[in-house]
């Protein structure tokens, strides 16, 4: 089986929020962070990241500021707003409930139904 899981629709935003919640990051840094925290199982297409970032900024979940990257390049850094933090909590709970429900459903055995 492919070691990299397919990204479910809608999960990119949640992953970005999670990645940024661990500390301000620029776009490329977010990609690296998601790879790192998912044990390289979730890889995001580079081009797909930015529309998502702009969307989250527009929704007021992220804020952005220009800064300087570790290798001395001017880059835009993203961090969570308070709304974004709240949203991350909600979405995480929702996701956990869903994941638990799915896991339980998929574990069901014929004789237990």
């Amino acid at each position, binding site marked *: 089986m492919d070691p990299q899981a397919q990204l479910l629709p*809608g*999960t990119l935003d949640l992953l970005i929020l999670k990645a940024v919640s661990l500390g301000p990051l*620029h*776009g490329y840094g977010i990609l690296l962070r998601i790879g790192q925290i998912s044990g390289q199982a979730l890889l995001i*297409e580079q*081009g797909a990241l*930015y529309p998502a970032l702009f969307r989250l900024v527009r929704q*007021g979940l992220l804020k952005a500021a220009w800064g300087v990257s570790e290798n001395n*390049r001017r880059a835009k850094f993203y961090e969570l707003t308070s709304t974004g933090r709240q949203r991350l909590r909600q979405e995480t709970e*929702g996701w956990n409930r869903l994941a638990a429900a799915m896991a339980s459903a998929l574990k069901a055995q014929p004789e237990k139904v």
Partner: protein
Amino acid sequence: MEPSGGSHGFGAEGAAGEGMKLLDTLRFFAANMLHRARAEGDMEQELRAHIQIRADDLERKGVARREAERQAHIEFGGYQRVKEECREAMGTHLVETIIQDVGFGWRVLRKSPGFTAVAILTLALGIGANTAVFSVVYAALLRPLPYAAPNQLIALSEVRPQLETPTGDEMPYWNASYPDYLDWTRQSKIFRSFAGFSPQQFLLRGAGGAELVQGGQTTTNFFTTLGVKPILGRDLVAGEDVESGPNVAVISYGFWMRQFGGDRQVAGRSIRLGDRSVQVVGVLPRDFEFAPLGRPEIWVPMHISGGLVTRRSLRWMSVVGRLSRGATMVQARAEMKVITAGLGQAYPQANGAIQVVMQPVRDRVLGTVGGLLMILFGAVGFVLLIACANIANLHMVRASGRRREFAIRAALGARRGRLISQLLAESLMLAAAGAALGFLLARWGAAALIGAIPQTLLDTMPFLADARANLPVLGFLCAVTVLAGVAFGLAPAFGASQRDAGVALREESRASASGSRQRLRHALVVAEIAVSLVLLTGAGLMVESLGALLHRNPGFDTRNLVTFAVNLPVTTYPDDPDAIRFDRQFTERVRALPGVAGIVSNSTIPLTGGGSTVRFLIEGRPKPAGHEDEACIRSISNDYFSMMKIPLLSGRFFDDVDDTVKGPPHVIVNQAWVDAYTRGENPLGKRFRFTFSPKEPYREIVGVVANYADAGLDSPEVPALFLPFPQDANSYITYLVRAPASPAEVIDSLRAALRAVDPQLFLAQPATMEQIIDQSPSVFQRRYPSYLIGGFAALAILLAMVGLYGLISYSVSQRGPELGIRIALGAQRGDILRLVVGEGARLAAIGVAAGLAAGLALTQLMRGLLFGVSAADPATFAVVAIGVGLVALAACCIPARRAIRTDPIVALRYE
């Protein structure tokens, strides 16, 4: 599964978040609007930084810098596409999309100038013509009359059904007698009030000389009945409309401005009307108009006396009634029927055969123009329909041709909504350009429509004075434009985007248009052909009516005739002998003028309409009181028939020996009178007397003349009788002068002659007979729609043929390979020609058949306007149908020639 707290995605948000989101959106939208350039630069920098950082990473792993940058670029994916998505995500999407669509549309339209020009012109003509006609229709039909609750106002008229109406209209006259008016007022409950009015000309004398001013004399409740209040001074008050009433006048706003410079202290000032000094008491509102009297400027209370007040059979006054609140026309008719029956019983001699007809004042004001305008409006609406059908067809054909382009764009990630919005942008740009051009056309067209109405007729339609492109018309224009844009923009947009991009790409240029779309296009062309056939038939019938009318022999020689009127004031010409003396002096002087071949008088100028009628009893043939026969009566000078070249059929003309003031009472009748009343007996020597007075003597018929057109060129030949002027003199005399010189010169010398006889007199309403015919309602009613419907029909057939040509051309280009195979397999030119033309001919045949059927139904609507031709005239229909068929074949032949020249090798290579 039902995950709580929203979905696991970010689609749904709470109400608070919704408000926040809206605010944020707005803020971002504004920020982006203001700093679009900066945002764009920011995004560019950020994305470039990303690639550089990634390249740095790769470089650290040992990749050479150039290779690292290349790889970073590739990993990033479609750079432009990402940017596009980011713009969308940032919220600049809408504005940018519009700007892009417009920019793109502009480039596309510029690349196909032929299509663009045809589309814009088609739209401009359709919209322009519609708006122009709508401006006029609005002014005439939709704009409320400037009276309070105008729908409650009813025109009432007394008619005798025995008398054939000269124009065939439902209500040709608008007259009642004064005693009957008083009885109506007393008896009616349904009507709140009745008011009487009658036209009057005033000779206004001022410092700069004298001029004729139109006006009216009214009962004092006239303005309260209309619901109009003077803006200055007072209304007429009860008691002023009696013989010895005060000389007061209410004046129009225009007259107030012109004569008094808008002086607010005008009430109490005096003007000289004829030989009287009249005090101005009030000024009417600016928007007041009263079309039945043309452009009246001075209103005076009726000062009537004698027979006008007491005689029930003297029906000289027009009456307008106002219904009580909530009362209906039906109730009013029922009530007036009862009142009329009562009056008929009480006064059998005067009212025995009288009926009252009613019409809303609006209909009365519009007269036949209302129907005419509706027909024009319908005709021009058809043109717009054809124009829209054509545009839709053009677009569909083009969209089919552009399927490859759309397929590629879809494959590159353009969403369906984006394609639709782009096609819509193109359509709306076309519509906007068409509307702008159309608006110019409309302004010009509305002016031309009004300008084409003869001045004398325009004076009877003051409501058309402000018929120019106004706000409601502008609104209509915009509505039509947007509808047209959406109508023809959406059809191809759905057609183009409904299929899967892949399918379209695979089918690519083979482009066998889907069946439904092809059927729709065929249906549109068939409808265009049918509609243009209807319009052409209508135009043909109108042109034939006009021709028949103008070629109708009026029965007298209309060449080199100048007409005018002279009104003799009562103070200086109190009795008949005074009028006769004036007539003799004046005519002698005119006959002596160089170049004058003759001068005659008639109480009514032929072809101007109007004139009075009289009831008579033939000797030895009694009739019940009130049911006597009635005929037109004209008072003529003795040499009238000979100068007018009206043939004598039997007997003799009047002469100056027998038919004098003191001579025995004589009368001449026309052939229609003989046909109607003599029952085949010799009319000469028969005697009859008028019944309006028991003192009337028996008059002997001395001659019979041929019929001539009296009321109008289109009027039926009605019984008429003629009295010698010396035996029936009048203080209002209308003259006809035959003189070959230029009319202006003739009129100048006539004016001088009149002044020489009496410097106080005024030469009124000078006109040539050509002008009278030209400006007469009967000619106008045919000429106007002839030109207009003719123009619309030409436009329609042109558009329809462009549509048919486009369809067949497209079909030929799509069937290229097929035709190539046929030719390769040995098909002859004739076969190909038959194949291609056959397709068009089939459509044309269906269109012509549908058009004939629709035409037969629709031309019935214009029956009232036709003259000398039936609404279902087989010749007109046949000629138009054959003509449309031939033109349609011609339109198909051009693409067919191209089809014949198809090179099978070339055609097949593309397959």
